[in-house]
């Protein structure tokens, strides 16, 4: 197995591959370290291409002895070319990585697939998480399929769709009166005393590895090539940095050539600690109290903020934020040009892409991949009232009286 150890991202101390997430020496975050030197390029590529249609096709790059079997394995979501969106923005090529097409309709199925497999390998029987909603859905569903008990902690003011889409699986849903950062603090405290696998606390180093698979998939779906730019949302900064880490691993190994894309991060103006730090030139983030409709990105104290800042700067990208109205407009723009209905986080990402285009930050020849992380059906309030519905009696007359024609009818031939 190429996975060798857990290693501190700050001081490089190493630890066994166990349920541990903090460096004892300096309190830095731990990450899985691999030795890929034994991997043969051709046979690795063949194993990927012959692998299952889910994230386990990338098992060589995940921290397991062999591919664990999972019922709800995530991944191999569509990468679709969005020419109408590109035309609207005045750029050559935009692709949408639609990660709403996962078992519970968000990218969180990837991280939970990995975290749960590791939790079972380590012998845990109870799985828990601190969540802004999408993770709650995924933990509840995957533990149900695996026959494990789950405790899901969410802010009490979460969208109803995300609460309903969690409790339905039989999870213990705990609605905490506070922000996500309060929920996260509580779970961090609880993880010290309970023999539970908190997917994004004590098994977070494994969980985070799941997001690398978005990077692998984008590259594989483009024919083992990299795009020029990735536009992706930032909440904790984990997904943003891990997509790059996955691509860098393949570059180092020779599976890909060229260099990392520019990484453009997207935050909501009502919770933009990383975008603010980017603009101010800081290398750490000052925590904020979130106030935004993009609740899945409402992390005021982002754990991977410093690394997201490093990546945006070193890759020639950036980090921008957009208002709630721009988020709503972003949802509509993606829906009306690509036929993809995304949740508020995807509205943030699409709106930031539009902002970059309007500001002239994009080279017209760029190949851009927009990472859409969740489904619009989870945040219906964001589009309520944004269009008219024509209510009529069931008669031709009433239809013709009330429903204006948007464009002229085709001329008869």
């Amino acid at each position, binding site marked *: 197995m190429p996975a060798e150890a857990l290693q501190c991202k700050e001081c490089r101390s190493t630890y066994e591959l166990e349920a541990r997430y903090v460096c004892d020496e*300096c*309190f830095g975050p731990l990450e899985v370290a691999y030795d890929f030197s034994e991997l043969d390029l051709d046979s690795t590529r063949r194993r990927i291409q012959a692998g299952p249609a889910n994230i386990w096709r990338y098992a060589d790059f995940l921290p397991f002895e062999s591919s664990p079997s999972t019922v709800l394995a995530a991944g191999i979501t569509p990468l679709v070319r969005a020419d109408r969106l590109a035309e609207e923005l005045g750029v050559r090529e935009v692709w949408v990585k639609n990660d709403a097409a996962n078992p519970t309709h968000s990218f969180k199925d990837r991280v939970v697939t990995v975290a749960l497999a590791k939790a079972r390998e380590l012998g845990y029987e109870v799985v828990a998480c601190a969540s802004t909603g999408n993770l709650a859905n995924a933990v509840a569903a995957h533990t149900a399929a695996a026959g494990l008990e789950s405790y899901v902690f969410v802010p009490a003011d979460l969208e109803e769709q995300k609460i309903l889409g969690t409790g339905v699986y039989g999870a213990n849903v705990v609605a905490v009166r506070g922000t996500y950062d309060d929920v996260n603090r509580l*779970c*961090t405290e609880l993880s010290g005393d309970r023999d539970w696998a908190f997917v*994004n606390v004590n098994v977070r180093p494994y969980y985070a590895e799941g997001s690398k698979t978005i990077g692998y998939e984008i590259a594989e779906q483009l024919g083992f090539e990299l795009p020029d730019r990735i536009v992706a949302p930032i909440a904790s900064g984990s997904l943003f940095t891990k997509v790059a880490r996955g691509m860098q691993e393949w570059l180092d190994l020779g599976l890909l050539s060229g260099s990392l894309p520019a990484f453009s991060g997207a935050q909501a103006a009502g919770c933009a600690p990383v975008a603010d730090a980017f603009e101010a030139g800081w290398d750490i983030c000052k925590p904020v109290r979130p106030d935004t409709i993009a609740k899945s990105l409402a992390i005021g104290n982002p754990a*991977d903020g410093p690394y997201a800042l490093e990546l945006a700067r070193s890759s020639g990208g950036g980090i921008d934020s957009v208002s709630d109205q721009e988020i709503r407009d972003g949802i509509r723009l993606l829906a009306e040009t690509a036929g993809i209905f995304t949740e508020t986080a995807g509205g943030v990402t699409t709106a930031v892409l539009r902002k970059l285009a309007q500001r002239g930050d994009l080279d017209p020849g760029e190949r851009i991949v927009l990472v859409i992380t969740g489904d619009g059906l989870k945040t219906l309030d964001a589009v309520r009232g944004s269009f008219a519905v024509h209510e009529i009696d069931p008669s031709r007359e009433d239809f013709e009286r009330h429903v204006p024609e948007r464009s002229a009818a085709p001329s008869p031939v």
Partner: protein
Amino acid sequence: MSVIVKIPTQLRSVTGGEAEARVDEATTVGDVLDGLYDRFDGLRDRIAEDGDLRRFVNVYVGGEDIRFLDGLDTSVEDGDEVTILPAVAGG
């Protein structure tokens, strides 16, 4: 006066396994931490660097992040609970 400090599992190897420590005679969070550094060998290097907290350390007073208050100058009162936690979870 006295303040109770909650010690995370990651630091209990330097507190002799103690999950809580009581600090008397402190007026700020900085004083509380200095009191702990005097008592527990090796604690300072774990969580502090050049007189400030390391970047992945969170400290709370009564559940509130001290970065929303006055940082290490945040005042503490009799009966306050100070919590130290790693800042590397979540998301």
